[in-house]
């Protein structure tokens, strides 16, 4: 069908055509209050179509089982619409060339396909593990996913990929206002460890009992990987050349400039072994590789597709997004610190284990706030002294990146409901972070 679409669209006058078939079978077991509340299954098979004609661009989807006559109707409609549109001066074509592709290592595991109802056992075991650790209840979700993708383009690209994934998210509640969250994320069963996630969430929740109120001000903050991955996830939009070109990034005109502390190196690595977001090719069919975004604190590059690359006089980074370049796996380079060393180095600070609801006052400046949820601990003279609650991080994202003093050696892949693009991050110590709270 893909071959037919590409040829037919070209016959109708399209200059650039991309046809992509995507099929996915996803399963979910959702639990709350120690009980499974729903099992869900999705079976979707689509063919996505993009075409360009005289710099006018349009996209749509048809069902994988669509008849040829329906495909013809869709392509005719696309061409009819493009004729009515005005050209996009920012469109410069799609990927062209003889590309070599590499399979994602540890990206597919037949055992995940075969799990089926055993997923319920995995969830039950994790709930029980958290209960054994003394929490009152746990809520969360287990997903498994099997997908296949095939892409053909008018520039001769013909490539396919397949993958599996499994991800588990658990939030344990030891008492009112005493909770913690953890995840386990993998493309293959080996290394997937929902019990370790349950252990971490429940033990942290137990430590956070009886949280007290705490003053606002500037604190040195240690962010748990769950929390810092969320900040990096919300930073990842700013690396997109489309957002930069739109004027909606705090990295505008900063290539080659210092935007973070010396110890910060951030890559987008879509070829990462067992990378949750790793893929063989991007939405134009370009092979996906590793790209340095920030190296030793200096902004090195934006994320590009063919069109943004042309506009910025550079080369595609293999991050298409047909509209907006997208990251695959955001990776914060490991540091050399240990979590315990971080704690002992803080005179007056906080240890924040999770955040959510990050919102910007201005994407161009990076002014934002985000709300810690789950366990927060106050640190005094190198020791955790008590659990606290009801705080907000109110600061500027670039200032946060510049204030990083320590990064742990230990890292973890984070992907869950709030952080939908996978992020690999460690514990991170930031100096003088703005902390605010509700006022009476």
């Amino acid at each position, binding site marked *: 069908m893909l071959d037919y679409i590409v040829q037919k669209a070209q016959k109708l006058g399209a200059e650039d055509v991309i046809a992509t078939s995507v099929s996915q079978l996803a399963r979910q077991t959702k639990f709350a*209050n120690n009980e499974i509340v729903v099992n869900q299954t999705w079976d979707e098979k689509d063919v996505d179509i993009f075409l360009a004609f005289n710099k006018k661009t349009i996209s749509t989807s048809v069902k994988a089982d669509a008849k040829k006559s329906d495909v013809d109707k869709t392509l005719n409609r*696309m061409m009819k619409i493009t004729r009515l549109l005005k050209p996009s001066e920012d469109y410069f074509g799609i990927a062209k060339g003889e590309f070599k592709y590499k399979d994602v290592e540890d990206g597919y595991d037949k055992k995940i396909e075969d799990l089926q109802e055993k997923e319920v056992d995995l969830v039950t075991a994790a709930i029980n593990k958290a209960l054994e650790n003394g929490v009152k209840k746990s809520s969360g979700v287990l997903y498994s996913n099997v997908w296949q993708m095939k892409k053909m383009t008018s520039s001769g690209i013909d490539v396919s990929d397949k993958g599996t994934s499994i991800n588990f998210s658990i939030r344990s509640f030891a008492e009112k206002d005493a909770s913690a969250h953890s995840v386990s994320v993998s493309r293959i069963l080996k290394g997937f460890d929902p019990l370790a996630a349950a252990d971490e969430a429940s033990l942290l929740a137990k430590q956070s009992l009886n949280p007290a109120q705490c003053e606002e001000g500037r604190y040195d903050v240690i962010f748990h990987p769950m929390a810092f991955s969320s900040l990096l996830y919300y930073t990842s939009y700013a690396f997109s050349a489309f957002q930069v070109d739109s004027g909606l990034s705090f990295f505008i005109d900063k290539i080659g400039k210092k935007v973070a502390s010396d110890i910060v190196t951030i890559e987008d690595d879509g070829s990462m072994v067992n990378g949750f977001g790793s893929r063989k090719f991007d939405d134009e069919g370009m092979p996906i590789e590793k790209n340095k975004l920030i190296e030793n604190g200096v902004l090195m590059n934006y994320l590009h597709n063919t069109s943004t690359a042309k506009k910025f006089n550079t080369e595609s980074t293999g991050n298409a997004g047909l*509209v907006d370049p997208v990251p695959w796996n955001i990776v914060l380079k490991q540091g050399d610190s240990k979590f315990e060393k971080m704690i002992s180095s803080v005179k007056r600070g906080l240890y924040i284990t999770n955040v959510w609801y990050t919102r910007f006052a201005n994407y161009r400046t990076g002014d934002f706030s985000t709300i810690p949820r789950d366990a927060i601990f106050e640190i005094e003279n190198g020791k955790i002294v008590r659990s606290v609650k009801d705080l907000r991080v109110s600061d500027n994202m670039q200032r946060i990146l510049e204030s990083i003093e320590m990064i742990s050696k230990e890292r973890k892949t984070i992907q869950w409901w709030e952080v939908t693009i996978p992020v690999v991050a460690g514990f991170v110590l930031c100096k003088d972070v703005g902390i605010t709270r509700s006022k009476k």
Partner: protein
Amino acid sequence: MIFVDKDLSKFCINFALKNGASFAEARIVSSTSDSFMLKNGTPVVSQFLEDSGVGIRVLVNGAMSFVSANSFNRDLLKDKIKRAIKFAMSSANTKKEKIEFEGFKFAKTKWEVKGKRKIEDVSPKEKMDFLFDIEKNLKDLKSKVPSRFFQLNTETSETFYANSEGAEISSRIPRVMLYYSVVVSEGNQSEQRYFQFGESGGWEMIKKWKAEEKIREEAKVLLNLIRKAKSFNTEAVDVILSPELVGIAMHESCGHPYEADRILGREGAQAGESFIKEEMMGTRIGSDAVTVVDDPLVPNNFGYYEYDDEGVKARRRFLIKDGIITEFLHNRETAVKMRTESNAAARASSYNREPIIRMSNTFMLPGNYSFDEIIEEIKKGVYIKSFTEWNIDDKRWNQKYVGSESYFIENGELKGLVRRPVLEITTKDFFSAVDACGKDVGFVPGSCGKGDPMQGIPVWMGGPHIRLRNVVVSKYA
């Protein structure tokens, strides 16, 4: 529009019942949508989509299973239903508390939102021209507005819902939405505004938005904010909030915490739980001036529906009446758990999402005050007309709203612009501080996010101008 095969629903329901389900429902959805974007005067990839599929939900031995497919092949659906039932059975063995649905007498009916001019009759050129008109209207300000992004989305959705208890409900709803973002910059300073218009109905809706005028006015205000606005030194003062601010506050700190599934913990690892507990029903949360409803039936509201996605007839829900907590948002499952009746709050964003408890149109009811009467008694205060950054914690207790267009109030009069006044306050303090509500009511649209996988769903939110007495307004750090 793809033909909605009503027999297929019955086929799926009967097959599920025969294979062990005690309850089954099938929701067939067929939708057409398109999206046009203009970035700094240049069109971005246009999109259109015709999508259809079926979502089937079953109860098996007190466990729930949902399955969806974008194919109407009956053999494939039989296989999916069997697997869904098996999946539910494996969970049922682990469950101490069985899921039940409240009994109901269901209707066989249909409803539709009609527009004067059908959105599918509007050509792509006319839709793009609508965006170009907004761009043109900013022409003389362009050098000060380096970032201009406009996106027009239209969608018409047809649904046939049926369940094993006799419901058969057809519906058709068209919606129009404009999202925009502008950044105004001067020197090394910038201010940003991102917002949207949205209603259900025909293409005629866009005329009354006067989007090109409103966005131009907002851009000019942003420029004045850069040039003239002064910071507010943190102190407790009286505050007037516009319908836009009241809307977001009603949505975040009244609508969400009153969702019964959150109260019962079903969203605990995602959107969170709620500071509201079942036993708080009938207790005071705000002043006498506060009455908040969620009403799907207000004509042309972005979250309009007449029957929810469990087939229950919609009605206005009084969440807070005269400051007292009076009602939560329920579906059939939570209604049983809290020994009440569903008030039709179950919604699904698409055929491939389970119906969960959602708001539709959450707003504070108006009072008797004119704007002049609200402001005249204020010696020192702030009027926050629009907002930028905002957020709230996952139990819906601590919220923050950062003003965009905002003014000092001195001795009953608006004075100069305030730079980003911050209202960071608990929900109880917010509702307790309200002492006057305007006669006017305004609404704004939103896409509310909840569920796992995420379901963005169209809602409205709003209210009148309101006055909060003696609340702390802080300087933006």
